């Protein structure tokens, strides 16, 4: 099968998956208790107003009509309005995407930068202290709930080390001065009082004014959340890299490469590590859901203004249109990443395209 054909096939499968997610969302909303019209309106709204909203929203139509309307709206890119804030869902989702993407990418980078060398060291120095260390670390990493890890990092850095400004999250303004640990004071950097900027804007400051200030502030804020979210994946990739590489090192082609005199760096990295990463990449694709779930929790712990935090808000207020928007976005992201992973897999392993 050619690459293009393969991708088209995966894309179609992806669309089916997204349709499935949309349908489940609709089903959940249909069976969930509570009259949407009541949720939309302030408490104490008159009966007439409720009736009017029901008519306008098509809530008095049969379920299948509602479903078709709903799918039609989604296909045309109409995600509706938030019941709580009455803002366009699309805008509410889009404005939160950069923060989440920054967090997940930073976590992924943390994971890859630590995990691959650790896995390689572990596999090539088997049963040496370094290997035991890496094994214990990865065992702890996959067994620690990330929300707890986040809290413990805050405890250590914020409370015990008493770092006076947040090296973590966005609104932990100062643990020393504020008694309520999760103040809803908005996302400010302490002590500058400036609103911290995203990565893009930080880079723009750097290019335009030659100032690394914004970038440092950005780094300062993302460090602990990225570590929190990245730890599980660091541990997982370390384990996968180690076991994959141990398998791979035992294969005859490794001996054959050594026999032809190839420098050991090339044997180890060009041949063995490359082949090790092929299955690792597949697993990471499948684990994207875990990464996203982890992002939701990490954002909650650190009050990180991303999609996850917004999802928690939407869940708390039963804001179905907003929930739908976020869930559809997560599904699209999941499907896209998995197609990308498959494409990389296809590129790295010539045997796959034969099948």
């Amino acid at each position, binding site marked *: 099968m050619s690459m293009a054909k393969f991708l088209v096939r995966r894309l179609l499968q992806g669309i089916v998956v997204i349709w499935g997610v949309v349908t489940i969302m609709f089903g959940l909303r249909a069976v969930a208790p509570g009259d949407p019209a009541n949720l939309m309106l302030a408490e104490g709204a008159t009966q007439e107003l409720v009736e009017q909203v029901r008519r306008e929203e098509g809530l008095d139509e049969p379920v299948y009509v509602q479903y078709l309307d709903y799918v039609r709206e989604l296909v045309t890119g109409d995600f509706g309005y938030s019941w709580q804030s009455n803002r366009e869902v699309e805008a509410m989702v889009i404005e939160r995407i950069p923060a989440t993407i920054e967090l997940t990418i930073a976590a992924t980078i943390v994971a890859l930068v630590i995990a691959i060398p650790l896995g390689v060291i572990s596999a090539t120095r*088997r049963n040496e202290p370094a290997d035991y260390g890496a094994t214990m670390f990865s065992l702890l990493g996959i067994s620690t709930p990330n929300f707890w890890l986040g809290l413990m990092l805050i405890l250590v850095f914020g409370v015990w080390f008493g770092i006076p400004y947040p090296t973590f999250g966005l609104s932990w303004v100062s643990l020393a001065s504020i008694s309520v640990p999760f103040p809803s004071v908005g996302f400010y950097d302490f002590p500058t009082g400036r609103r911290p900027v995203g990565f893009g804007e930080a880079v723009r400051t750097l290019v335009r004014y030659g100032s690394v200030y914004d970038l440092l502030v950005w780094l300062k804020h993302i460090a602990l959340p990225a570590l929190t979210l990245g730890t599980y994946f660091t541990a997982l990739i370390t384990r996968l890299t180690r076991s994959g590489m141990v*398998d791979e*090192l*035992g*294969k*005859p*082609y490794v*001996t*054959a*490469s*050594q*026999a*032809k*005199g*190839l*420098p*050991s*760096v*090339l044997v180890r*990295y*060009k*041949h063995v590590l*490359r*082949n090790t990463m*092929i299955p690792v990449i597949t697993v990471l694709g499948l684990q994207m859901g875990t990464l996203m779930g982890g992002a939701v929790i990490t954002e909650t712990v650190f009050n990180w203004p991303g999609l996850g935090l917004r999802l928690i808000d939407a869940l708390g207020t039963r804001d179905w249109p907003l929930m739908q928007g976020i869930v559809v976005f997560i599904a699209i992201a999941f499907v896209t990443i998995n197609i990308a992973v498959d494409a990389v897999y296809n590129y*790295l*392993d*010539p*045997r796959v395209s*034969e099948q």
Partner: protein
Amino acid sequence: MTEEILRVSDLSTRYFTQEGQVNAVSSLDLEIERGEVFGIVGESGSGKSVTARSVMDLIEPPGEITDGEIRYRNPDLVEAIADDHPNAIDGEFVKLLELPDDVRRSLRGTSFSMIFQDPESSFNPTLTVGEQLAEAVEVQRRASATPRSTRARTESAEYSLGSLLLSNVFPSRRYVSEESRDRAIELLELVGIPDPVERADEYPHEYSGGMLQRAMIAQALAGEPDVLIADEPTTALDVTIQAQILDLLDDLQRETGMTILLITHNLGVIARMCDRVGVMYAGEIVERGTLEDVFDEQIHPYTAGLLGSVPDLEGGATRRDADRRTADRLQPIPGNVPSLLDHEMDDRCQFADRCPKAMTACLEHPPEYPAGGSDAHRARCVLAEREYDEDAALSDGYFDESKRPVGDEHAEPAEPGTEPPEERPQQPAENTGGERQ
């Protein structure tokens, strides 16, 4: 005029496994002359492959060369390393085991190279065959750029992680050069692969087994080695392909005059290819000599047993009748391949428990005796000295009574994959050499 190119003396290679010490190779002596084809034959688990890997420096933990010396004649190399490693020099010979790892590594591909049993798993499945051949060419190209200096030799073979990372950014820093790629295509042509230009860009799974074995031979030739070690080069192949591969090796050997150490369990292959033969059993060479010595005037009952289990020798390699091959298997040597676990080995003739002519004298470890035939003929068997004596014979059940049957305790290596599977000493005798058909 003949001269020794390789002299292995008193070589012992052991594996330190959970079950105990495995004496894969014990005090082995071996001399190979320049330009000859030397065959080592034996059942699986007899230490053939470990011997080859010891010469190549491919023994990995839990294995270790514990004793002995491997001398390699190469005046150029002697000159090159004279300053840095004077203790590794013995006349025109270099003592390989005295050399540091990096120098030994630099000899792989250029001085010694190896063909493996299973071509399909001996190529990296995710790189093109051309790329993998070109790597082998590049090793030789970089080494021969300054052949006189080992320092340059080892340094050129060094390739740091930094260079590898850089090569992803700058194509000019890649390890494999364009010239090497072109040479790889020539090599593919040399071993008779049609459309080598296109084939070079294909992946191993797109090749047939025979094609891939040709490619592996090409890869082994890339470094223009002094000694080519062929470890069961035809075992994994169809019978018809086997003959073609042997023809190819034969032709190449005649053209280049290179030395070949051929390892096989198949006496037919030995008969077809070799000048001299060593028969291995339990980590030792039990009989050695010219082809005629071993085939016509063999002393050791084990050699006779091997020949007995494959009676139709002349047609061995080219025989196409699969049924007859099976029929040949009907006369196996009774008993099992011996356990090579140190604590289960007695200091006796290791074959005595399976030997139809075992005598009390066999309870002592026999030295090598000269035997009839050519000057090179030696046998590690008391029968070389005296006739079989019924009266001194051991009773049939002698070894069963004195201890539990040897060889039925599995000696799994501690970590699978580090020990060549062929060397697991627990397989029954009929199941030789990792045959796959």
